[in-house]
């Protein structure tokens, strides 16, 4: 049966589709497994009144982007260019986020 090239292709596609379906099942399994961990993290956030994930620790405005002064990236001197690599991953001023209150 596998002598036909199309049969061989279908076999490969079926294996890849099974792997893809397995990824959905795995995603569902991981979501259930990690649920308790996420709940625990959420509890910690509530208890310690945390506001930011620890994604970038090199400067205060990258460690706590929501708490930093709006222009702290440029406070080294008036024409300072933002120089931390993660600064390229965080918008300097998040337009819209503070539109009403600031």
């Amino acid at each position: 049966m596998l002598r036909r090239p199309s049969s061989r292709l279908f076999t490969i596609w079926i294996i890849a589709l099974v792997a893809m379906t397995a990824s959905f099942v795995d995603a569902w399994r991981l979501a259930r497994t990690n649920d308790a961990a996420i709940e625990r993290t959420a509890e910690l956030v509530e208890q310690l009144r945390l506001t930011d994930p620890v994604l970038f620790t090199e400067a205060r405005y990258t460690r706590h982007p929501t708490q930093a002064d709006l222009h702290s990236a440029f406070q080294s001197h008036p024409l300072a260019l933002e120089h931390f690599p993660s600064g390229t991953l965080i918008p300097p001023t998040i337009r819209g986020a503070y539109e009403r209150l600031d």
Partner: protein
Amino acid sequence: MNDWIERQRHLLDFTLTSLARRKTKNIGLLVVFTLLVFVLASVSLYTQALRSEAVRVLEQSPEIVVQRLVAGRHDLIPPDYLVGIGRLRGVRSIETRLWGYYYDPVLKANYTLMVPRTRTIEQGEIVVGPALEHTRGLGTNTGISLRAYSGELHTFLVTDVLPHETELMSADLVLMNEDDFRRFFNFPDGHYTDIVLSVANPREVRNIGLKLMEMLPDARPILREEVLRTYNSIYAWREGLLLALLSASILAFGILAWEKSTGLSADERREIGILKAIGWETGDVIRMKFWEGFVIAFSAFLFGYVLAYVHVFYLRFFLFEPVLKGWAVLYPRFALTPQIDAMQLITLFIFTVVPYVAAVLVPIWRAATTDPDTVMRS
């Protein structure tokens, strides 16, 4: 129906044999296409998972954080602030936060020092985040000396490490006693880093923020919805940035695919001419070429997606990790929870498979509709 399926299978068989004749070129194309899908799917899966996890966790963050600004910079909250805010209607509770940054010259990293309100920590003791355990080697019952800004050396005993599963939010935390914190930073009594408010009616949060700004013009209220919006926009920005960096490779692939499909090789032209001369209909030639494009694009889509899933959720996104880490010494080790939705996959399919198949079909249609003799002679 069976006839139709059998006809398509014969066309597919013919297509695969034809692809096998140009093996190196087509395998190269499949590898490049798979890599492209892999990169796009990796970015999309990672960002989606991180965004949904951060947003879900941050839904428990404070409703309002009140900071004080002096000359445009974050300053300490003086005691009289609390009295004023306490008089605001609609505020259910007021809590103060004591936290700050400490630069550890040994590790060349910043820690976040904090006084917890819901946990008692004795003087001289600290509780550390998991990243400090694996980066600085601080386990339970180990000691650490930190030099305060006054130059004085303070020694602390680690009594606990925060749970590893909370690392995304707690990696660099050092929890300590309030007296230790004030002594360590020479923090004036009665002053705090900021204030956290909870509001009785969630719909009143914005109004309370506005009232706060009227009452205390130097205050900067940060609402939970702003925190969530900030993180949504940061991840959108990051995804956009990675995609912008990748746009050069996407463009290069576009040019490759376009070149391959528009500039039909002499062999391909001759093949079409011969097929038509021996009696193939224009429709059959187009169908055969459709299968050719679809075999490569769909295979690349399946392989690229599966590889991306393994890369993001089992190999911890290691190929792109340096970009995300930046210069940070302390970086959390966290396992992301996949968030795959149908729309994400459909978008990936539409942006990768469909344009390629279309780019293959257009020139073939042109060649297949011309006279076989002209095609072979050209």
